[in-house]
């Protein structure tokens, strides 16, 4: 009976990362990441600068600039690391960029239409009609209060910092991912923008999807309540706790974690 329950749990795992190692330019950044995420959960990953937080998000999303040198990642029962970035997207992985990329000359509308239809094609569906697409855009824009005029502009070009981050959440809303990785979505946001972005994320949350929030500050976690907080340091998750861990970090800084992790390593 006990065994059976375990088995049932395991097929419900959304993401299971085991001993993940990755490098860029010959430098090893991730040195054995272990992470498990279930549907309905919100995980926060915190850690000092240079600990590998953004690298983890890039590797999970499949940035070809990074090389995976060891370990595995299973996403909804499939080998994540074997998939092209676009397939990861179709399968339900979304990365909200810390620095959303500007693409002059490519309009938001064309970009999103291409994205939506690429996913439909992957699942053997017909392209979305123009009317249905416009309706979808309207609905999803409302979630993050994104101005209509941004839709006619080039992707992220001339957007303010807040608009760029809202645009990320807007795209997330359109693509309806199973797992969203939000990389420092709070950086560069004022309080109002932070609230709008966080509310957008909360509106999109269901029992069937999950979120990884990468952040430096506890502040964002006041709005997006995590179930788990992981501390990343020198390419490893050195501590995992509940929301209270983030509060403790806010109070004590990272030094005590660095010390204990470094001591353990020795």
């Amino acid at each position, binding site marked *: 009976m006990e065994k059976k329950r375990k088995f049932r749990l395991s097929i419900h795992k959304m993401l299971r990362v085991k001993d993940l190692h990755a490098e860029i330019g010959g430098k090893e950044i991730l040195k054995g990441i272990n992470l498990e995420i279930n549907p309905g959960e919100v995980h926060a990953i915190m850690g000092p600068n240079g600990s590998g937080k953004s690298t983890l998000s890039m590797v999970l*999303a*499949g940035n070809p600039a990074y090389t995976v040198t060891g370990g595995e990642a299973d996403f909804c029962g499939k080998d994540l690391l074997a998939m092209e*970035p676009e397939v990861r997207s179709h399968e339900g992985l979304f*990365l909200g960029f810390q620095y959303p990329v500007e693409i002059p000359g490519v309009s938001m509308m064309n*970009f999103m239409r*291409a994205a939506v239809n690429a996913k439909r094609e*992957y699942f053997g569906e017909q392209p979305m009609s123009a009317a249905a697409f416009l309706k979808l855009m309207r609905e999803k824009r409302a979630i993050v209060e994104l101005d209509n005029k941004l839709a006619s502009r080039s992707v992220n070009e001339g957007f303010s910092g807040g608009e760029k981050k809202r645009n990320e959440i807007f795209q997330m809303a359109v*693509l309806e991912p199973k797992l969203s990785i939000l990389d420092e979505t709070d950086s560069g946001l004022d309080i109002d923008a932070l609230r709008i972005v966080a509310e957008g994320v909360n509106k999109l949350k269901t029992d069937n999807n999950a979120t990884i929030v990468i952040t430096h500050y506890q502040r964002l976690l006041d709005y997006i309540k995590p179930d788990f907080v992981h501390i990343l340091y020198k390419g490893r998750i050195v501590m995992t706790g509940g929301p209270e861990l983030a509060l403790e970090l806010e109070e004590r800084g990272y030094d005590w974690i660095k010390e204990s992790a470094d001591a353990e390593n020795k």
Partner: protein
Amino acid sequence: MNALQQYIDLYRDHGRLLREKSCETLNAPREKACTDLQNMALPRKGSENYEHTDLQELLAPDYALNIARVPLGVNPQATFRCDVPNLSTSLFMLLNDGWAETDISRRNLPEGVTVDSLAHAAATMPELVGKYYNKLADPANPLAALNTMLAQDGLFLHIRKGVKLEKPLQLVDILQYDVPLMTVRRMLIVIEDAAEGKLLICDHTQNPDVKLLNLQTIEIFAGRNSHFDLYDLEESTENTTRLSTLFLRQESGSNVLIDGITLFNGTTRNEYFCSMPEPDAELHLYGMGIEDLSRRLDTYSRISHEAERCRSNELFKYVVDDSSTGAFSGRIYVAPGAQKTEAYQANRNIVGTDDARMFSKPQLEIYADDVKCSHGTAIGQLDALQVFYMRTRGLSESTARMLLKQAFMADVIEGVRLPALKDRLRQLVEMRFSGTQGSCSACHNEGCRI
């Protein structure tokens, strides 16, 4: 052996026939052009202005020339229809180097606008044509001299003083023959003072299997305060060689736009010689080249600011893929005394593969001290982070690359001053990059898409 010699010999042997089938105005400068050619050596590949084009090689093949003006037995309208949604033009056609009468030729044009076969115009209006013909072409330019020696027909466009032509003119040039043929096209464009007009030239090759050479020389006179746009769109084949030399003279206050668009080609050399001898003229010189397979595109431009307060804006963009080659050499010359000149030049390029090559040489030569000038070039790859960003949203790598290449051309397309052509061009560029459309070689009888 000098590749020019065969043409000089041809002229020496058959000059009489050639002259008989032409008229006095066009015949007048032939002899001198022949002498000039005799005294010049073709520039070697690698020499200053011909670093990446070997005229010797391009002119060496034994091409047929139709100096006897034998009708080549092709009815262009049976095989070729032009139709652009929303772009209503007055349509004219050149079949190889002969004028093809279209239904609307010379009809429906406003008073004061002449669009005609150059041969016909030179015969019926010798004074008008003679006043301008071969007055801009540089006798020392081998391609122009060769054209002058051999040209028998082409386009004559004249817009009389103060006449504003609303409807754009469209000239469809078709190369089609069963054996290697050299076509000698000559275009003379005279826009008188305060006149306005726009001309779109669509340069097509219909027979993809035969080596064809298009040797064309264009002379443009833009009078005071005139406005003129020339869009020169090449959609030919890999077997086509195009050697085009354009001479432009702008009088004071004139505003000219020249846009050379190469969507499909074989080997192309486009030369632009633009001079602004009077103050307050404005020139926009744009170009784009989309090269793949082993196509070659070489642009040479020289913009001479010779008077005060002239403005020029030059922008050329290339995308070179596969094992294609692109070259750009541009020079802005600012003469002594040409104060308050504003001249900007930019050449930006994307090299898509390891085997593709791009060469760029932006040059400024300034002899006045109160000017604003810039020149610059950039050669690079598509931004890997942009590609990745798009892929994380589900776009395939090839779609992402295609959209980025298209976006790269956006500012050149933005420069087009004909809204309907701008839309059409955006579409053509999209289709070109996505490979959903072949060149003329693939479409055959479907007709021109512009």
